[in-house]
Protein backbone atom coordinates (compact mmCIF):
# COMPACT_ATOMS: atom_id res chain seq x y z
CA UNK A 1 0.00 0.00 0.00
CA UNK A 2 1.26 3.45 -0.82
CA UNK A 3 -1.00 4.98 1.79
CA UNK A 4 -2.21 3.04 4.78
CA UNK A 5 -4.32 4.77 7.42
CA UNK A 6 -5.32 2.93 10.56
CA UNK A 7 -7.72 4.10 13.26
CA UNK A 8 -7.39 7.79 12.42
CA UNK A 9 -8.97 10.30 14.79
CA UNK A 10 -9.01 14.06 14.23
CA UNK A 11 -10.44 16.19 17.01
CA UNK A 12 -10.99 19.96 17.09
CA UNK A 13 -11.58 21.26 20.59
CA UNK A 14 -14.58 19.07 21.30
CA UNK A 15 -15.69 18.15 17.78
CA UNK A 16 -14.64 14.65 16.77
CA UNK A 17 -14.34 15.28 13.05
CA UNK A 18 -12.77 11.93 12.12
CA UNK A 19 -13.50 8.88 14.23
CA UNK A 20 -11.44 5.78 13.74
CA UNK A 21 -11.04 5.80 9.98
CA UNK A 22 -9.18 3.00 8.17
CA UNK A 23 -8.30 3.76 4.58
CA UNK A 24 -5.86 2.33 2.04
CA UNK A 25 -4.68 3.52 -1.32
CA UNK A 26 -2.54 1.27 -3.49
CA UNK A 27 0.11 2.60 -5.83
CA UNK A 28 -1.43 3.57 -9.16
CA UNK A 29 -5.03 3.84 -7.92
CA UNK A 30 -7.53 6.64 -7.98
CA UNK A 31 -9.53 6.42 -4.78
CA UNK A 32 -12.37 8.79 -4.01
CA UNK A 33 -13.73 9.86 -0.67
CA UNK A 34 -17.32 11.05 -0.73
CA UNK A 35 -19.53 12.36 2.01
CA UNK A 36 -21.83 15.22 3.00
CA UNK A 37 -20.65 18.64 4.18
CA UNK A 38 -18.85 18.35 7.48
CA UNK A 39 -18.36 14.59 7.18
CA UNK A 40 -14.61 14.99 7.78
CA UNK A 41 -13.19 14.58 4.26
CA UNK A 42 -10.93 17.62 4.32
CA UNK A 43 -9.81 16.75 7.84
CA UNK A 44 -8.53 13.39 6.59
CA UNK A 45 -6.57 15.02 3.77
CA UNK A 46 -5.10 17.60 6.14
CA UNK A 47 -4.04 14.84 8.51
CA UNK A 48 -2.25 13.06 5.64
CA UNK A 49 -0.36 16.13 4.43
CA UNK A 50 0.38 17.17 7.99
CA UNK A 51 -1.56 20.44 8.17
CA UNK A 52 -3.66 18.93 10.95
CA UNK A 53 -2.21 16.90 13.83
CA UNK A 54 -3.85 13.57 14.56
CA UNK A 55 -5.48 12.83 17.88
CA UNK A 56 -4.88 9.11 17.41
CA UNK A 57 -3.99 6.55 14.79
CA UNK A 58 -1.19 5.95 12.31
CA UNK A 59 -0.64 7.04 8.75
CA UNK A 60 1.90 5.12 6.72
CA UNK A 61 3.21 6.34 3.40
CA UNK A 62 5.25 3.90 1.34
CA UNK A 63 5.72 1.87 4.48
CA UNK A 64 6.96 4.76 6.62
CA UNK A 65 5.12 6.14 9.64
CA UNK A 66 4.45 9.81 8.94
CA UNK A 67 4.14 10.84 12.60
CA UNK A 68 7.61 12.37 12.78
CA UNK A 69 7.54 14.15 9.44
CA UNK A 70 6.53 17.82 9.43
CA UNK A 71 4.35 18.84 6.46
CA UNK A 72 7.23 20.23 4.36
CA UNK A 73 9.06 16.90 4.60
CA UNK A 74 5.91 15.04 3.57
CA UNK A 75 5.63 17.37 0.58
CA UNK A 76 9.27 16.81 -0.35
CA UNK A 77 8.94 13.05 -0.07
CA UNK A 78 6.03 12.92 -2.46
CA UNK A 79 2.71 13.97 -0.92
CA UNK A 80 1.09 16.77 -2.92
CA UNK A 81 -2.03 18.35 -1.44
CA UNK A 82 -4.43 20.68 -3.23
CA UNK A 83 -6.17 22.04 -0.16
CA UNK A 84 -9.74 23.19 0.24
CA UNK A 85 -9.90 26.90 -0.57
CA UNK A 86 -6.94 26.52 -2.97
CA UNK A 87 -4.44 28.58 -0.96
CA UNK A 88 -3.05 30.54 -3.90
CA UNK A 89 -0.35 33.04 -2.93
CA UNK A 90 -1.75 36.39 -4.04
CA UNK A 91 1.62 38.09 -3.57
CA UNK A 92 3.24 35.80 -6.14
CA UNK A 93 2.65 35.73 -9.86
CA UNK A 94 1.11 32.69 -11.49
CA UNK A 95 4.54 31.58 -12.65
CA UNK A 96 6.04 32.11 -9.19
CA UNK A 97 3.25 30.10 -7.57
CA UNK A 98 4.13 27.23 -9.89
CA UNK A 99 7.86 27.64 -9.45
CA UNK A 100 7.64 27.76 -5.66
CA UNK A 101 5.66 24.53 -5.69
CA UNK A 102 8.76 22.82 -7.13
CA UNK A 103 10.82 24.00 -4.15
CA UNK A 104 13.49 21.52 -3.15
CA UNK A 105 13.26 19.52 -6.37
CA UNK A 106 16.71 18.70 -7.67
CA UNK A 107 15.88 17.16 -11.03
CA UNK A 108 16.11 18.98 -14.34
CA UNK A 109 12.47 18.51 -15.32
CA UNK A 110 11.15 21.68 -13.69
CA UNK A 111 10.96 23.69 -16.89
CA UNK A 112 9.39 20.76 -18.71
CA UNK A 113 6.76 20.45 -15.99
CA UNK A 114 6.03 24.18 -16.21
CA UNK A 115 5.45 23.77 -19.91
CA UNK A 116 3.22 20.79 -19.25
CA UNK A 117 1.08 22.76 -16.78
CA UNK A 118 0.77 25.63 -19.26
CA UNK A 119 -0.18 23.17 -21.97
CA UNK A 120 -2.88 21.69 -19.75
CA UNK A 121 -4.18 25.13 -18.70
CA UNK A 122 -3.65 27.66 -21.47
CA UNK A 123 -5.47 30.26 -19.37
CA UNK A 124 -2.63 30.09 -16.87
CA UNK A 125 -0.07 30.48 -19.64
CA UNK A 126 -1.71 33.74 -20.72
CA UNK A 127 -1.63 34.98 -17.15
CA UNK A 128 1.80 33.83 -16.08
CA UNK A 129 2.97 37.30 -15.00
CA UNK A 130 -0.30 38.20 -13.28
CA UNK A 131 -0.55 38.34 -9.46
CA UNK A 132 -2.22 35.29 -7.96
CA UNK A 133 -4.68 37.55 -6.17
CA UNK A 134 -6.10 38.79 -9.47
CA UNK A 135 -7.16 35.36 -10.76
CA UNK A 136 -10.79 34.34 -10.93
CA UNK A 137 -11.95 31.51 -8.70
CA UNK A 138 -11.78 28.95 -11.49
CA UNK A 139 -8.33 30.12 -12.57
CA UNK A 140 -7.15 29.81 -8.98
CA UNK A 141 -8.44 26.26 -8.95
CA UNK A 142 -6.42 25.49 -12.10
CA UNK A 143 -3.36 27.06 -10.53
CA UNK A 144 -3.81 24.98 -7.38
CA UNK A 145 -3.91 21.80 -9.46
CA UNK A 146 -0.97 23.06 -11.50
CA UNK A 147 1.05 23.59 -8.34
CA UNK A 148 0.40 20.03 -7.23
CA UNK A 149 1.70 18.84 -10.62
CA UNK A 150 4.85 20.90 -10.12
CA UNK A 151 5.45 19.03 -6.86
CA UNK A 152 5.54 15.78 -8.81
CA UNK A 153 4.21 13.87 -5.86
CA UNK A 154 3.75 10.14 -5.77
CA UNK A 155 0.45 10.71 -4.02
CA UNK A 156 -1.87 13.51 -5.03
CA UNK A 157 -4.50 14.64 -2.51
CA UNK A 158 -7.23 16.62 -4.23
CA UNK A 159 -9.84 18.45 -2.17
CA UNK A 160 -12.79 19.24 -4.44
CA UNK A 161 -10.77 20.16 -7.52
CA UNK A 162 -13.91 20.74 -9.60
CA UNK A 163 -15.35 23.29 -7.22
CA UNK A 164 -16.27 26.55 -8.90
CA UNK A 165 -15.40 25.40 -12.40
CA UNK A 166 -17.67 25.74 -15.41
CA UNK A 167 -19.19 22.41 -16.54
CA UNK A 168 -16.88 21.93 -19.50
CA UNK A 169 -13.89 22.62 -17.25
CA UNK A 170 -15.15 20.10 -14.74
CA UNK A 171 -15.01 17.45 -17.44
CA UNK A 172 -11.59 18.73 -18.40
CA UNK A 173 -10.26 18.55 -14.85
CA UNK A 174 -11.47 14.98 -14.39
CA UNK A 175 -9.81 14.07 -17.67
CA UNK A 176 -6.58 15.68 -16.43
CA UNK A 177 -6.76 13.74 -13.17
CA UNK A 178 -7.05 10.52 -15.16
CA UNK A 179 -4.10 11.55 -17.30
CA UNK A 180 -1.94 12.30 -14.30
CA UNK A 181 -2.91 8.97 -12.83
CA UNK A 182 -2.01 7.10 -16.02
CA UNK A 183 1.38 8.76 -15.94
CA UNK A 184 1.99 7.12 -12.59
CA UNK A 185 0.60 9.35 -9.83
CA UNK A 186 -1.65 7.84 -7.20
CA UNK A 187 -4.71 9.98 -6.42
CA UNK A 188 -6.94 10.39 -3.38
CA UNK A 189 -9.86 12.50 -4.53
CA UNK A 190 -12.41 14.25 -2.34
CA UNK A 191 -15.45 15.38 -4.31
CA UNK A 192 -18.96 16.75 -3.93
CA UNK A 193 -19.44 15.65 -7.49
CA UNK A 194 -19.77 11.99 -6.48
CA UNK A 195 -21.01 10.85 -9.84
CA UNK A 196 -18.02 12.14 -11.78
CA UNK A 197 -15.60 11.10 -9.06
CA UNK A 198 -16.84 7.52 -8.97
CA UNK A 199 -16.68 7.36 -12.76
CA UNK A 200 -12.94 7.96 -12.83
CA UNK A 201 -12.03 6.28 -9.52
CA UNK A 202 -11.10 2.66 -9.08
CA UNK A 203 -12.46 2.49 -5.56
CA UNK A 204 -14.36 4.69 -3.16
CA UNK A 205 -15.11 5.29 0.49
CA UNK A 206 -18.28 6.86 1.86
CA UNK A 207 -17.80 8.95 4.96
CA UNK A 208 -20.58 9.95 7.34
CA UNK A 209 -20.00 12.09 10.45
CA UNK A 210 -16.40 11.03 10.69
CA UNK A 211 -16.85 7.31 10.05
CA UNK A 212 -16.49 5.14 6.98
CA UNK A 213 -19.87 3.59 6.40
CA UNK A 214 -19.21 2.02 3.03
CA UNK A 215 -16.24 1.08 0.89
CA UNK A 216 -15.81 -0.75 -2.37
CA UNK A 217 -15.17 -0.68 -6.08
CA UNK A 218 -16.55 2.40 -7.81
CA UNK A 219 -18.88 0.38 -9.98
CA UNK A 220 -20.36 -1.26 -6.89
CA UNK A 221 -20.82 2.10 -5.17
CA UNK A 222 -22.38 3.61 -8.29
CA UNK A 223 -24.92 0.79 -8.22
CA UNK A 224 -25.55 0.91 -4.48
CA UNK A 225 -29.11 2.15 -3.79
CA UNK A 226 -28.10 4.01 -0.62
CA UNK A 227 -25.27 5.84 -2.42
CA UNK A 228 -27.54 6.62 -5.38
CA UNK A 229 -30.13 8.14 -3.08
CA UNK A 230 -27.82 10.10 -0.76
CA UNK A 231 -25.00 11.22 -3.08
CA UNK A 232 -26.10 10.85 -6.65
CA UNK A 233 -29.56 12.33 -6.24
CA UNK A 234 -31.56 9.54 -7.80
Amino acid at each position, binding site marked *: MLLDIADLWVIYDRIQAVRGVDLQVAEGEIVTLIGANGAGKSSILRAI*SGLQPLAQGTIRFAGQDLAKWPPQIR*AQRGIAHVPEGRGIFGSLTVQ*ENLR*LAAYGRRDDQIQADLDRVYALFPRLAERRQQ*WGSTLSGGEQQMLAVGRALMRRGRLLLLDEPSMGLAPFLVKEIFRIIQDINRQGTTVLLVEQNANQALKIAHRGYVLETGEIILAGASTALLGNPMVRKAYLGH
Partner: protein
Amino acid sequence: MSCPVAIALQYLLNALQLGSVYALIALGYSMVYGILTMINFAHGDIFMVGAYLAMWATLFLLGLPLNLPIIFIFLGSLLFTMTLTAALGVSIERLAYRPLRQAPKVSAVITALGVGLFLENFTLATIGPEPRQVPAIIPVQQYSWGGVAFTNVQLLILVVSLILMVLLDTLVRRTLTGMAMRAISYNRVIVPLMGVSVDRIISLTFAIGSAIAGAGGLLYGLAYPVLDPYMGIRIGWWAFIAAVVGGIGNIRGAVLGGYVLGTVEIFTPVLLASSTYRDSVAFSMLLILLIFKPTGLLGRPTVEKV
Protein backbone atom coordinates in the same frame (compact mmCIF):
# COMPACT_ATOMS: atom_id res chain seq x y z
CA MET B 1 29.73 77.58 -1.56
CA SER B 2 27.62 80.67 -1.89
CA CYS B 3 25.33 79.43 -4.63
CA PRO B 4 22.03 78.33 -2.99
CA VAL B 5 21.70 75.39 -5.34
CA ALA B 6 25.11 74.14 -4.31
CA ILE B 7 24.17 74.53 -0.66
CA ALA B 8 20.94 72.64 -1.18
CA LEU B 9 22.84 69.88 -2.98
CA GLN B 10 25.27 69.78 -0.12
CA TYR B 11 22.46 69.15 2.34
CA LEU B 12 20.89 66.65 0.02
CA LEU B 13 24.11 64.68 -0.02
CA ASN B 14 24.13 64.63 3.77
CA ALA B 15 20.48 63.57 3.72
CA LEU B 16 21.28 60.70 1.36
CA GLN B 17 24.11 59.58 3.58
CA LEU B 18 22.00 59.52 6.73
CA GLY B 19 19.02 58.18 4.78
CA SER B 20 21.11 55.25 3.58
CA VAL B 21 21.72 54.18 7.16
CA TYR B 22 18.04 54.57 8.03
CA ALA B 23 17.09 52.62 4.94
CA LEU B 24 19.42 49.75 5.78
CA ILE B 25 17.87 49.44 9.23
CA ALA B 26 14.32 50.01 8.01
CA LEU B 27 14.72 47.01 5.70
CA GLY B 28 15.04 44.70 8.69
CA TYR B 29 11.93 46.06 10.40
CA SER B 30 10.05 45.69 7.17
CA MET B 31 11.18 42.16 6.35
CA VAL B 32 10.38 40.82 9.79
CA TYR B 33 7.03 42.56 9.81
CA GLY B 34 6.26 41.21 6.36
CA ILE B 35 6.87 37.65 7.38
CA LEU B 36 5.66 37.60 11.00
CA THR B 37 3.48 40.75 11.27
CA MET B 38 5.56 41.62 14.28
CA ILE B 39 7.68 44.68 15.06
CA ASN B 40 11.13 43.54 16.10
CA PHE B 41 11.87 46.33 18.56
CA ALA B 42 15.30 44.86 19.26
CA HIS B 43 16.36 45.63 15.70
CA GLY B 44 17.81 49.08 16.49
CA ASP B 45 19.98 47.45 19.12
CA ILE B 46 21.23 44.87 16.65
CA PHE B 47 22.37 47.86 14.61
CA MET B 48 24.16 49.20 17.70
CA VAL B 49 25.88 45.85 18.31
CA GLY B 50 26.90 45.88 14.64
CA ALA B 51 28.53 49.28 15.04
CA TYR B 52 30.61 48.01 17.97
CA LEU B 53 31.52 44.77 16.22
CA ALA B 54 32.69 46.75 13.22
CA MET B 55 34.78 48.97 15.47
CA TRP B 56 36.50 45.96 17.02
CA ALA B 57 37.05 44.24 13.72
CA THR B 58 38.63 47.39 12.33
CA LEU B 59 40.84 47.91 15.38
CA PHE B 60 41.94 44.29 15.18
CA LEU B 61 42.73 44.39 11.48
CA LEU B 62 44.49 47.74 11.77
CA GLY B 63 46.53 46.41 14.68
CA LEU B 64 47.87 43.45 12.73
CA PRO B 65 51.47 43.99 11.68
CA LEU B 66 50.61 43.19 8.10
CA ASN B 67 49.88 46.59 6.66
CA LEU B 68 46.73 45.30 5.01
CA PRO B 69 45.26 47.27 2.16
CA ILE B 70 42.36 49.54 3.15
CA ILE B 71 39.87 47.73 0.97
CA PHE B 72 40.73 44.48 2.70
CA ILE B 73 40.23 46.01 6.15
CA PHE B 74 36.91 47.47 5.09
CA LEU B 75 35.59 44.28 3.50
CA GLY B 76 36.95 42.13 6.32
CA SER B 77 35.20 44.26 8.94
CA LEU B 78 32.02 44.27 6.88
CA LEU B 79 32.00 40.49 6.51
CA PHE B 80 32.78 39.94 10.20
CA THR B 81 30.07 42.36 11.32
CA MET B 82 27.40 41.04 8.99
CA THR B 83 28.12 37.42 9.92
CA LEU B 84 27.93 38.06 13.66
CA THR B 85 24.85 40.27 13.54
CA ALA B 86 23.17 37.65 11.35
CA ALA B 87 23.95 35.04 14.01
CA LEU B 88 22.66 37.39 16.70
CA GLY B 89 19.38 38.00 14.85
CA VAL B 90 18.86 34.29 14.21
CA SER B 91 19.55 33.46 17.87
CA ILE B 92 17.13 36.11 19.08
CA GLU B 93 14.38 34.71 16.87
CA ARG B 94 15.12 31.15 17.93
CA LEU B 95 15.34 31.78 21.66
CA ALA B 96 12.94 34.66 22.22
CA TYR B 97 10.37 34.90 19.43
CA ARG B 98 9.84 31.36 18.13
CA PRO B 99 8.51 29.97 21.42
CA LEU B 100 5.92 32.77 21.36
CA ARG B 101 4.83 32.39 17.76
CA GLN B 102 1.40 31.04 18.67
CA ALA B 103 1.00 33.50 21.56
CA PRO B 104 -0.79 36.86 21.16
CA LYS B 105 1.22 39.44 19.19
CA VAL B 106 1.60 41.67 22.21
CA SER B 107 3.70 39.03 24.00
CA ALA B 108 6.19 38.99 21.15
CA VAL B 109 6.35 42.79 21.07
CA ILE B 110 7.02 42.99 24.81
CA THR B 111 9.66 40.28 24.45
CA ALA B 112 11.27 42.26 21.63
CA LEU B 113 11.44 45.34 23.87
CA GLY B 114 12.99 43.13 26.55
CA VAL B 115 15.60 41.76 24.16
CA GLY B 116 16.44 45.33 23.15
CA LEU B 117 16.91 46.33 26.78
CA PHE B 118 19.07 43.28 27.29
CA LEU B 119 21.34 44.17 24.38
CA GLU B 120 21.67 47.76 25.60
CA ASN B 121 22.47 46.78 29.15
CA PHE B 122 24.77 43.97 28.15
CA THR B 123 26.76 46.43 26.06
CA LEU B 124 26.65 48.92 28.91
CA ALA B 125 27.91 46.34 31.40
CA THR B 126 30.66 44.94 29.24
CA ILE B 127 31.89 48.04 27.45
CA GLY B 128 30.75 50.84 29.68
CA PRO B 129 28.71 53.96 29.10
CA GLU B 130 31.45 56.20 27.77
CA PRO B 131 31.22 56.90 24.04
CA ARG B 132 33.78 55.10 21.90
CA GLN B 133 35.68 56.62 19.04
CA VAL B 134 35.68 54.55 15.86
CA PRO B 135 39.11 54.40 14.22
CA ALA B 136 39.20 55.83 10.73
CA ILE B 137 39.68 52.94 8.32
CA ILE B 138 39.76 55.23 5.40
CA PRO B 139 41.77 58.43 5.25
CA VAL B 140 39.13 61.03 4.46
CA GLN B 141 39.60 62.82 1.18
CA GLN B 142 37.65 65.90 0.27
CA TYR B 143 36.47 66.46 -3.25
CA SER B 144 34.56 69.33 -4.71
CA TRP B 145 32.36 69.36 -7.72
CA GLY B 146 30.57 72.51 -8.82
CA GLY B 147 30.75 73.98 -5.35
CA VAL B 148 29.44 70.81 -3.67
CA ALA B 149 31.93 69.26 -1.28
CA PHE B 150 31.92 65.54 -0.66
CA THR B 151 34.24 62.91 0.74
CA ASN B 152 35.27 59.45 -0.30
CA VAL B 153 33.58 58.14 2.87
CA GLN B 154 30.25 59.63 1.84
CA LEU B 155 30.52 58.04 -1.57
CA LEU B 156 31.44 54.72 -0.05
CA ILE B 157 28.41 54.79 2.24
CA LEU B 158 26.06 55.62 -0.62
CA VAL B 159 27.49 52.99 -2.93
CA VAL B 160 27.71 50.15 -0.40
CA SER B 161 24.16 50.83 0.81
CA LEU B 162 22.90 50.86 -2.74
CA ILE B 163 24.62 47.57 -3.53
CA LEU B 164 23.09 45.91 -0.45
CA MET B 165 19.63 47.25 -1.29
CA VAL B 166 19.79 46.06 -4.89
CA LEU B 167 20.99 42.63 -3.76
CA LEU B 168 18.17 42.34 -1.26
CA ASP B 169 15.58 43.54 -3.74
CA THR B 170 16.80 40.97 -6.24
CA LEU B 171 16.71 38.25 -3.62
CA VAL B 172 13.12 39.01 -2.68
CA ARG B 173 11.90 39.42 -6.24
CA ARG B 174 13.87 36.85 -8.16
CA THR B 175 14.90 33.91 -5.98
CA LEU B 176 13.00 30.95 -4.60
CA THR B 177 13.84 32.12 -1.09
CA GLY B 178 12.28 35.47 -1.88
CA MET B 179 9.19 33.78 -3.27
CA ALA B 180 8.95 31.72 -0.10
CA MET B 181 9.21 34.89 2.00
CA ARG B 182 6.43 36.57 0.06
CA ALA B 183 4.34 33.40 0.23
CA ILE B 184 4.73 33.20 4.01
CA SER B 185 3.66 36.78 4.41
CA TYR B 186 0.54 36.04 2.35
CA ASN B 187 -0.56 32.67 3.73
CA ARG B 188 1.81 30.92 6.06
CA VAL B 189 -0.35 27.83 6.60
CA ILE B 190 -0.14 26.66 2.99
CA VAL B 191 3.61 27.20 2.55
CA PRO B 192 4.76 23.81 3.95
CA LEU B 193 2.68 22.11 1.24
CA MET B 194 5.19 23.56 -1.24
CA GLY B 195 7.96 21.66 0.53
CA VAL B 196 9.22 24.82 2.21
CA SER B 197 10.23 24.92 5.86
CA VAL B 198 8.65 28.06 7.28
CA ASP B 199 11.05 28.07 10.22
CA ARG B 200 14.02 28.00 7.90
CA ILE B 201 12.76 30.94 5.86
CA ILE B 202 12.01 32.92 9.02
CA SER B 203 15.55 32.26 10.27
CA LEU B 204 16.93 33.40 6.95
CA THR B 205 14.85 36.56 7.11
CA PHE B 206 16.26 37.42 10.51
CA ALA B 207 19.78 36.59 9.33
CA ILE B 208 19.53 38.84 6.30
CA GLY B 209 17.74 41.71 8.07
CA SER B 210 20.24 41.66 10.93
CA ALA B 211 23.26 41.39 8.64
CA ILE B 212 22.08 44.46 6.77
CA ALA B 213 21.56 46.32 10.05
CA GLY B 214 25.11 45.31 11.00
CA ALA B 215 26.38 46.75 7.74
CA GLY B 216 24.41 49.88 8.61
CA GLY B 217 26.26 49.99 11.93
CA LEU B 218 29.61 49.84 10.23
CA LEU B 219 28.72 52.56 7.73
CA TYR B 220 27.25 54.73 10.46
CA GLY B 221 30.51 54.45 12.37
CA LEU B 222 32.42 55.66 9.33
CA ALA B 223 30.30 58.78 9.04
CA TYR B 224 29.55 59.53 12.69
CA PRO B 225 32.44 57.87 14.50
CA VAL B 226 31.21 58.01 18.08
CA LEU B 227 29.36 55.00 19.51
CA ASP B 228 27.41 54.55 22.71
CA PRO B 229 25.22 51.69 23.97
CA TYR B 230 22.01 53.65 23.51
CA MET B 231 22.65 54.80 19.95
CA GLY B 232 20.33 52.08 18.63
CA ILE B 233 17.27 53.52 20.30
CA ARG B 234 16.94 56.85 18.55
CA ILE B 235 18.26 55.61 15.22
CA GLY B 236 16.10 52.51 15.53
CA TRP B 237 13.03 54.67 16.04
CA TRP B 238 13.82 56.79 13.04
CA ALA B 239 14.39 53.73 10.92
CA PHE B 240 11.16 52.21 12.18
CA ILE B 241 9.29 55.37 11.19
CA ALA B 242 11.03 55.15 7.84
CA ALA B 243 9.72 51.62 7.39
CA VAL B 244 6.18 52.68 8.28
CA VAL B 245 6.31 55.78 6.08
CA GLY B 246 7.44 53.66 3.14
CA GLY B 247 4.83 50.98 3.83
CA ILE B 248 5.94 48.39 6.33
CA GLY B 249 6.42 44.98 4.78
CA ASN B 250 7.56 46.54 1.51
CA ILE B 251 11.26 46.43 0.62
CA ARG B 252 11.38 49.37 -1.76
CA GLY B 253 9.13 51.30 0.62
CA ALA B 254 11.66 50.89 3.42
CA VAL B 255 14.39 52.31 1.21
CA LEU B 256 12.23 55.24 0.13
CA GLY B 257 11.19 55.85 3.74
CA GLY B 258 14.83 55.83 4.83
CA TYR B 259 15.73 58.56 2.36
CA VAL B 260 12.61 60.57 3.28
CA LEU B 261 13.52 60.43 6.96
CA GLY B 262 17.14 61.32 6.25
CA THR B 263 15.90 64.34 4.33
CA VAL B 264 13.59 65.37 7.17
CA GLU B 265 16.36 65.07 9.71
CA ILE B 266 18.86 67.10 7.70
CA PHE B 267 16.53 69.76 6.34
CA THR B 268 14.33 70.49 9.36
CA PRO B 269 17.07 72.23 11.38
CA VAL B 270 18.01 74.21 8.30
CA LEU B 271 14.50 75.35 7.49
CA LEU B 272 13.42 75.94 11.08
CA ALA B 273 16.82 77.27 12.16
CA SER B 274 16.78 74.89 15.12
CA SER B 275 17.09 71.16 15.59
CA THR B 276 14.66 71.09 18.54
CA TYR B 277 11.76 70.19 16.28
CA ARG B 278 13.44 67.43 14.34
CA ASP B 279 11.78 64.55 16.10
CA SER B 280 8.40 66.23 16.35
CA VAL B 281 8.48 66.98 12.63
CA ALA B 282 9.27 63.36 11.88
CA PHE B 283 6.52 62.02 14.10
CA SER B 284 3.96 64.57 12.88
CA MET B 285 4.80 63.63 9.34
CA LEU B 286 4.23 60.01 10.17
CA LEU B 287 0.83 60.77 11.71
CA ILE B 288 -0.32 62.93 8.82
CA LEU B 289 0.85 60.38 6.27
CA LEU B 290 -0.88 57.55 8.07
CA ILE B 291 -4.14 59.49 8.16
CA PHE B 292 -4.13 59.88 4.38
CA LYS B 293 -2.31 56.69 3.48
CA PRO B 294 -2.58 54.14 6.27
CA THR B 295 -0.46 51.60 4.38
CA GLY B 296 2.46 54.01 3.83
CA LEU B 297 3.83 55.40 0.58
CA LEU B 298 4.33 52.12 -1.25
CA GLY B 299 2.27 49.78 0.91
CA ARG B 300 -0.19 47.59 -0.94
CA PRO B 301 -0.86 45.14 1.86
CA THR B 302 -2.84 42.53 0.01
CA VAL B 303 -1.00 42.42 -3.28
CA GLU B 304 2.66 42.59 -2.51
CA LYS B 305 4.23 42.16 0.87
CA VAL B 306 7.74 41.58 2.17
